[in-house]
């Protein structure tokens, strides 16, 4: 594809490279773009990336592994979209995704991205684990297969396969059971939601995943879906309608908020800790849900919620979006965004950093270990804090 055929050919040159895309809302640091934070070279900033994409499509520079790494190091966190002062700011991440699509078309993608996509195509998850193991997390819990209950509990790939995230998936399941929510799961029949596939530029695979999932949901008679992962929530809520798949979709924090408000969850055992909350990008900037997680935390007796200096629309991404939790283009340094984020969380004096995303949780947990801060701070999913506040009662 030449520049003339690129969807954003009339827009991409309009980036002035003013640099606002690197900042959070309060301008406290210039490293709020996770890729720029990691490398601190202009080429890794959003503006640099857009200039390079244009140069590549315009045959001013050649495709190289390094160019692909720069293009794929974007975590699709949308900080740039939030901060860019120009009228075309809504298109910025899509400009990068469109360039990735072109790389996919040409077969010129980093090998780890190829591996990620092939694993999903073969096994329905990025790890390449067997489809037959997807539902193992639910074994022995008494959670039923979906067969017309009010909600489909959609867990997603990370919650289904990652050892730590599986604990979260189970904990949320227990909380939903405790609250008497009518729900079921798909177990081994669940497939990848495709959110990262879409962000990595593999349009055909995403379309195929979305259409298959939609058909499966429809066949099962699903109307309401509660998602563990903001990534799944984003794909099902915002992208599936384009393929004629419209469902009532909730992120689990929205459901927990309503259950607590409605008196269906007894959280009176409380949770005594100073807690800071890390906004997942696909819940916050992508879907503007900043309140539900905070409302849940604030409702729990004993929780002292303190904000990090960068929060809500100005939050620093953990660096795991856009497949980076697997491809790891941003890892391996004290400047890796998750490590910066953990240091920031510690600076609040919190003993717990709460999040509401299995991807963020695994990224942040690894960062705690890399920073050697295991004694100072722990990473917990909000569902786990809620569970301690309500399930402790059951243990009594």
């Amino acid at each position, binding site marked *: 594809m030449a520049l003339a055929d690129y969807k954003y050919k*009339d827009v991409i*040159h*309009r*980036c*002035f*490279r*003013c*640099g*606002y895309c*690197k*900042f959070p809302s*309060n*301008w*406290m*640091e*210039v490293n709020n773009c996770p890729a720029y934070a*990691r*490398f*601190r*070279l*202009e*080429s890794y900033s959003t503006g*640099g990336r857009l*200039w*390079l994409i244009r*140069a590549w499509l315009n045959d*001013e*520079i*050649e495709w*190289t592994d*390094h*160019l692909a790494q*720069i293009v794929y190091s974007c975590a699709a966190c949308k900080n740039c979209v939030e901060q860019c*002062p*120009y*009228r075309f700011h809504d298109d910025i991440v899509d400009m990068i995704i469109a360039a990735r699509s072109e790389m996919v078309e040409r077969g010129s993608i980093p090998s780890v991205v190829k591996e990620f996509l092939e694993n999903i195509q073969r096994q329905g998850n990025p790890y390449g684990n067997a489809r037959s193991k997807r539902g193992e997390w639910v074994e022995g819990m008494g959670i039923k297969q979906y067969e017309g209950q009010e909600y489909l509990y959609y867990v997603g790939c990370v919650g289904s396969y990652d050892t730590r995230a599986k604990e979260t998936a189970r904990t949320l399941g227990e909380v939903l059971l405790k609250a008497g929510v009518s729900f079921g799961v798909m177990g081994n029949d669940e497939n990848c939601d495709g959110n990262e596939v879409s962000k990595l530029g593999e349009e055909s695979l995403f379309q195929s995943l979305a259409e298959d999932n939609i058909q499966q949901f429809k066949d099962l008679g699903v109307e309401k879906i509660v998602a563990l992962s903001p990534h799944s929530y984003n794909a099902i809520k915002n992208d599936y309608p384009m393929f004629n798949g419209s469902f009532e979709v909730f992120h689990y924090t929205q459901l927990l908020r309503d259950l607590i408000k409605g008196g269906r969850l007894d959280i009176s055992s409380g949770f005594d800790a100073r807690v800071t909350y890390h906004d997942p990008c696909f819940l916050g900037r992508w879907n503007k849900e900043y309140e539900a997680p905070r409302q849940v935390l604030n409702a729990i007796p004993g929780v002292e919620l303190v904000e990090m*200096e960068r929060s809500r629309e100005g939050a620093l991404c953990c660096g795991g979006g856009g497949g980076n939790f697997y491809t790891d283009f941003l890892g391996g*340094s004290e*400047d890796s965004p998750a490590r910066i984020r953990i240091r920031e969380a510690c600076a609040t004096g919190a003993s717990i950093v709460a999040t509401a995303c299995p991807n963020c949780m695994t990224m942040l947990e690894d960062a705690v270990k890399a920073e050697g801060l295991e004694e100072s701070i722990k990473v917990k999913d909000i569902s786990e804090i809620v569970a301690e506040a309500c399930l402790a009662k059951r243990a009594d």
Partner: protein
Amino acid sequence: MDSIYKALVEIVGEDHASTEQEELYIHSRSLGTVEPHQPDYVVAPRTTEEVQQIVKLANREKIPVVPLGGGLSLTGLVMPLRGGIVLDMKRMDTIIEVNEKARYVIVEAGVSQGKLISCLERYHPNLMHSEPMAPAQATIAGNVMIHGQGDLAQPYGFNSDMVNGLEVVLPTGEVCKIGSCSVSPYWFTAHPLPDLGLFLGWFGTTGIITKLSLRLYPCKKINGVDRFLVEDAELIPEILLKITHTEMVGDLVSSIQGLPLAVRGIHIITININGDSEKEIEFKRQLIREDILGEYIRNGDCGFMGTTPDLRTGQQRPTITTVADIKRGGGFEYVGAILPVDTYPECCREGEAISSRHDIIYTLGGRVIGRSHAMMFFWSYAFNRADPESVRQAREALHESDELALKLGGVPWKPSVYGQKLIMEKMEPNTLELMRKIKELLDPNGIMNPGNWEVM
């Protein structure tokens, strides 16, 4: 592996040194209209010691070194005109000390305007620095290096006049402190010797700033903005003189633009009035509106444009960046020149003519510096980055504006190489010779940002 690259990697680490086409491409392109020039290496140091080692290496190998801050001068001052090493200073971004009682801040050279603004707003709300109308990533060091001005220019002058001291890596690799910090732990004054003028304004040709102390000023809690409309440009200099006589205003800018049509041909004087209370703002506002500007309103020459709500200081964010997209082309460059305020009418007339000749929508204006001691007049030209003809036209208009500034008795500010040559052609020979001697003395191998301030 290239031995120089290997040495650079040893100094800053593999992640922060590059010879890849992608980094070289990015630093070969100007945000403005300057033609591309490709570096050989891009390096992002973290410490003064790393800068020092890089400069020593460059001297040994006779490789050019081009220090880079935010890269937003637009006039190509950080373009590697002779190749070499682009030294991206933005990793050196620690705010080292804010001294509230002596009202100064010590920063590393890569600290951005945005970071300092944010730090002062959050932790030292009674203090501010003179904030240029530049994007937040413009650096403090880059701004003083080009004799920038900010929103305190009217009361306090150029930002480079607000520097208390510097730490500089000399072109031969020695680290040198200038100002009180050379004899004291306090970075509170630029005295005794040598003068900061050895480094400020030289665009890195005499050394690399690694740390600096900048004066901070009282930050008033409320900023009121009045806009006074004037049709006759000839009235502007005396109006500005009268307003500055009150010593009651902050930033003071007069501007005129071709679009939107509703304001075409009308000069808008933006008067910032700062105070700690509504009462203080109201007192100053009434005095300026009635005692100073009343006669112009009564004569029917001028008037105020509605009212702008008073803002708490800190809520304002410069939006000048969006000027770059007027033509939906992502390009914008301006010639700024330091001129007597009296030349304002002619600057506007000639600026409109230049814009018309090159088919560019004009945005012109002057920011008052000091009590009408001077103004920074800007001739601003948007262009379409994707259209070479549009870029060429803007470049020609910029060159004409440089020539105009000198013709009117002014001095092009942060001049491009083209503007530098015009200045040096007009300069007294002995002054030029002094410049040559200083450069030769400090930079015997001619490695520092070569092509800039090049005395022939």
